[in-house]
Every structure is written in C-alpha cells, then in structure tokens.
C-alpha cells in the first residue's frame, strides 16, 4: 500500500493526487511515467509524472476522470494499492540539457497535457533555460495549475476554444504565428492536438517531440498493447517512448487504436459508478 496525502478535484473533470512513492521518484526524469492501481483487483493506469520531491519521496499526479478506473481512483482517500515507476524514457532535452543549450524551445500543452509538460518546463527553468509555453483548453474552467506553470515558464500564452480566457482559438494558431522563434517544439495533449501541432511544425521544419499515451497493460514491454507506428514500424510506448518524433508518428492510427475498448469501457464505467455508490452508502 502507498500512502496518499491528498486526492483533490482541481477542475470539473480532473484530480490531483499526492502519493508517498520514494522509489518511483528517486531517479525520475521529466517525461517518464508511473502505473498506479487503486486496489488489488483494479486496472493498471499509466500516468505521466506531474511533479516530485526526490528527497521527501513524494509523487504528484494529475488525472482526468474518463472511465471506470479513473472514476475509482478519484474516490481514493488514504492509500492506494500500487505505484510503479519511473517507467519509459525521460524527455530527450531533460535527459541531456547540455546538448540543447542555446536552443529556443516551446512547449505546447492541451488540457491535462499540462501535467506532463510542467515538470519538463520546471526542470529546464531550473537548468537556466527560458522556455515558452502555449497552453490551450476548451474553456477557462479546464485550464489547470496556472500559478505553477506561470512560475517556471518564460512566456505563457493561453488559448480557449470559447474565448473565456486568453486568446480565443487553438494552440496551433498561436504556435504558427510564432513558429520562427523556435528550434524545438514539445507538444503534449490530446492526439488530435499533437497531430495538428506536428502538421504546423512540419511545414516550418521545426523538430517536434510528442508524448504518446496509448492503451497499456504491464508497462514493461511484455504485452505490446501500447504499440504505436513510428516511421512505419511498431514501437512500444512503454519502453521505446513515451515520447517520439512527432513527424514520424501515425496519429490517425493512434486515434483508432484508442477506441479498441470503447464499448466495454462504457459498460464498466456504469458498473463502477454503481459499485462506488453502493460502497459509499
């Protein structure tokens, strides 16, 4: 069991959780992920590390409630059954900041994608980089951790689909207007956003890194559920990723593969809501 300090709602559909997980953070590099399980019989949920305190052994995660398992996770109070990490590879820039000195870097985040973006921007800020951030969501309510990201970003531009905060419109519009200022773009968010970002940067020949979050089971390379097509070849997000060259990923395939369990998920989510209601009654 892993001690949970808090598990609080931070937007209409997102939660932030603080867990004691010293091993998972001790050697963590921004970009790596963990897998959590609420109970012994729960699903394994892969989540990118949002923040950590290596000395105190603390791990922060942010997750969106999108189905049965995240619904169950959102009801956790004092402890969870399992946390394993860090898994996968750290972000390319954060793994070797020296060789990126002088590069002009822009992070583009969509929705809860700000959670994995934050530790990278923070790490680079701490290492003397001035990093810009473009952060978009559907509306103001869904923009998360604004204080934290503003403290570490050089310039930050917000966009909302409905114009309720920042620039009305999409992150890609803002990115394209400023594309000549950047040598590298890191985009993390919904697949469709990462795809659109990659299309913009391809036109302008700007290196682009994206973080894939496909279906996953063990997270150790054993099952292949998380395979993505990179440059026409299957790669496992769990051990070859989760970050890949955004110009080489087949996003359309990734979108389709996300829907494999859509029907089962719907049924399980309803079952879970009923189960949780019963447990709490």
């Amino acid at each position, binding site marked *: 069991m892993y001690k949970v300090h808090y598990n609080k709602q931070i937007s209409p559909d997102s939660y932030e959780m603080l867990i004691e997980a010293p*091993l*998972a953070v*001790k*050697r963590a590099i921004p970009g*790596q992920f963990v897998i959590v*399980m609420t109970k*012994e*019989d*729960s*699903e*394994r949920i892969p989540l990118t590390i949002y923040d950590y305190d290596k000395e105190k052994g603390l791990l922060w995660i942010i997750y969106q409630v999108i189905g*049965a*398992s995240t619904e*169950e996770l959102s009801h956790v109070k004092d402890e969870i*059954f*399992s*946390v*394993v*990490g*860090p*898994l996968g590879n750290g972000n390319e820039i954060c793994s070797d900041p020296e060789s990126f000195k002088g590069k002009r870097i822009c992070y583009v985040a969509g929705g809860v994608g700000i959670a994995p973006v934050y530790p990278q921007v923070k790490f680079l800020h701490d290492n003397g980089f001035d990093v810009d951030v473009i952060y978009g969501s559907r509306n103001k309510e869904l923009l998360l951790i604004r204080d934290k990201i503003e403290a570490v970003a050089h310039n930050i531009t917000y966009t909302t689909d409905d114009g309720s905060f920042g620039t009305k419109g999409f992150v890609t519009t803002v990115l394209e207007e400023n594309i000549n200022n950047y040598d590298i773009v890191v985009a993390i968010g919904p697949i469709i956003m990462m795809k659109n970002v990659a299309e913009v940067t391809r036109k302008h020949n700007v290196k682009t890194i994206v973080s894939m979050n496909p279906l996953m*089971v*063990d997270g*150790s*390379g*054993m*099952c*292949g*559920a998380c*395979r993505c*097509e990179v440059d026409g070849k*299957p790669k*496992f997000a769990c*051990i070859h990723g989760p970050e890949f060259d955004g110009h080489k990923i*087949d996003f359309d*395939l990734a979108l*389709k*593969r996300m*829907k*494999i*369990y859509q029907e*089962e*998920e719907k049924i*399980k989510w309803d079952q*879970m809501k009923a189960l949780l209601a019963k447990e709490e009654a």
Partner: protein
Amino acid sequence: MEDKKVKGRLQSPEERITNFNEVEYGFNDEEALAEASRCLHCKVPRCVEGCPVNIMIPEFIAHIKDGDIKAAYEVISRSSSLPAICGRVCPQEKQCEAMCVKGIKGDAISIGSLERYVADQALINNFNATKKIEQNGKRIAIVGSGPAGLTCAGDLAKAGYDVTIFEILHKAGGVLTYGIPEFRLPKDIVAKEVKSLKKLGVRINTNVPIGNAITLNDLQKEYDAVFVGSGAGLPKFMGIPGEDANEVFSANEILTRINLMGAYKDTSKTPIKNLKKAYVIGGGNVAMDAVRSLKRLGVDAHLMYRRSEEELPARKMEVEHAKDEGIVFDVLTNPVRILTDENNSVIGMEVVNMVLGEAGEDGRRSVTEDEKSLHKVDCDMVVMALGTSPNHEALKGSDINLSDRGLIVVEGTKTSLDNVYAGGDAVTGAATVILAMEAGKKAAKEIIDNLK
C-alpha cells in the same frame, strides 16, 4: 505388474471449456499408490538424469509406496523449490518420463503426476521440509520473480543467504502468474509456493522497475551477488500489412489480461475483447494457452501454424487437450495480410498454404509459401504467439555484455559484470519454465561456490 499407467482424471472437455478451473484433478491417494507401485527402482535411475534439477525420483516414489508423503516431499525439496509448479508444467514426456525404462515396452511412470501429488499434499498439510537455516550474513539481489528467480532465491535462502527479489509487476511469479493460465497452473498454487519461499526468509519487493528505479550497478554495489532472471521480453509480430489493426493482439497481452488482471471474470475491472472468431498464430505452448483461454471465453478459437501438426513445438498433452476442447487446427497455413474495415477493425485475413521442405541444420523442416493457394478467412481477432525478442529495460545504464541476438552472455551463469549472474529466458531466449528453474539452480550453486 501392469504396464499401463494410472490415468489421471480430467474435467470433461464440454465442462472445462465453460470455466477456467484446472483441467486435471490430480491423483487421489489410491491412484498415487497404484502408480508409485509400478516403479522398478532401477539401480541406475535414468529418470534422474532426465530431470533438469536431478530430483531423486525413485527415492521419492518409494516413500509414496510406503505412505510417507512427508518423506517424499523432503526428497523432492532437496532438488526443487517449486514442486507443485514443476509437477504441472514440466514437459516430463521429454525429460524424466522419456528416460523411464518402463516406457520401452509400455507406459512410463507418470512422474510428473506423482510429483504434483506429493507437492499438493505438502501444501494442504503444511509440510515444512526445511530445517533451521544458519544465516551467513551475505546479501543477494534477484531481478525478476519468475521461475529462474524464485528457484535461485529458494536455493540461496536454504543455504543461509539473505535474499531480496525485485519484481516490476504488482504480483510475484513472472510467467507463472501473468502467462500460464489458471486451467494449467492455478494461481493459488503459485501464491502458496511463493509464500513458502517467503517463509524461508526471501523478501519480494514488487513494483520495482530495475533499470529505471534502481540500476544493476546499484545492486552490484549494495549486494554480494546479483542474479538477473528478467525473462523473455518483447512479443514478436509478423510484420505483415494490417497487423496494427485494433483486434490484433500479442498472446502475451491476451494472457496478461486474463491471468494477471483476471479479465475472464465478470467482475474484472480490466477489459478483454469478447469477439466471435479468433485465429491464434503460432504453435508453441504460449499459442496453446492463448487459444484455449479464448475458447473458454466463448470465442470460436482457431490455431494457425505454418508447419504440420508433427512439428508443433507445444507439449503433446496440451495439443491433445486443445483438440478435445474443440480448437480448430489450421496447419500448413500462414497469414500474409490482415484485412480491416474503415475503423481499423479486423474483418479477416489473407492466408496461404505452406509446403514442407527438407530439415535444416536445426532439425526443423523448412517451409515455403504456395502462392497459388492465396485465400481469405473470416475472423474478428488475430493473436500473435510467435515468441519474443530481448527486452533490455532491466539492464539500462549497465554495460553488461550482450550477444548478437541481444541476449545476456554468460559463462556458466556468470555475466561480464563482477558478481552478476543471469539465467532463464534473458540468457536463452524464450524457453521453458523448467529450463529457467535449472538455470536459477545452477546460478545459486555458482554464487555459493564463488562467495565461499
């Protein structure tokens, strides 16, 4: 003396395809006694030579005859740390039983079934085969809690070493837990065997990704010796068009969902696709496990293998059980393309018939495609059971020597790193549970010899 073996009782095929309970019931006392009585107690027991861990087979069988099951268990325990598992999943017909002189004219002694009987009795009656252990204060780290790691841990703990196993998953057992299905190896048996290792003082730290959270070099510094039994690795795919379709899975994924995550239960929180007709591609034990699991989920389950039935690498018994269960075997056939609809869902396959040629250097017959035979089959699921390629996650950050094939290079069981040993699939490529156990055993012996 009768030359026919005592036949073990099985769940009937009609019944067992509706559940995941164990297929074989195992011997009762009378059956075990009758089978044990067939043993000739050869002066030079060839069966012992056939056993990778050299269990003193005639000796334990003699104790069964005398009705002293505890003594029989003690004999087995001297050589094997996991008898309830070996008794079930070892290919005895190729090992001990293949060497049995009774087998020349009639049936070999059912050594595996007798081993299982003794081990199960030990678990039921809580036999404790271990005498008090003198701790020697030396610390050993083991990477992976599969059959190699567990065996190595058991032998070292019995010899007085302080053993810690690191496991990346949330449950111990490796392939015994995530891979081999309940109907061949019940998970409570694995849990009990793991528990008896813990009783010997072995610590099992789950949720530790060696390579990422702790490196091999860290372990090397902190422990007197390290054993790496990290297992086989990444599932292989064929590289044919359409393989990225939504309902193309590795056998490992299907088995992990079912065994580790319990997806066969209605109450499971981890889903599994429940489709109509599946083809499992491959012919080994993993293919058999996957196709028989799918059958139990109500799927019209087919096995497709490119060579003929004679060449199937799976255990004969598993093939027979699969056939009894109504699995359709499409042999001498191979897929060349997976057909999909606009949603990337599987709707069928294009397959070709295969023609067998001469045996190659490895003794396996070559196969060539008969291109004229190209035809379509309908299905909505394809499962690849084609073996694995090495996974180096656990070795991240170390400069351990690897072969051209990416496997860990060993001399005996010693790797290129000081005080680091390795065995099992990480060294041999995908093989069997018993070979992994044998490697774990050899490593334990080498570690003991070298740390003296």
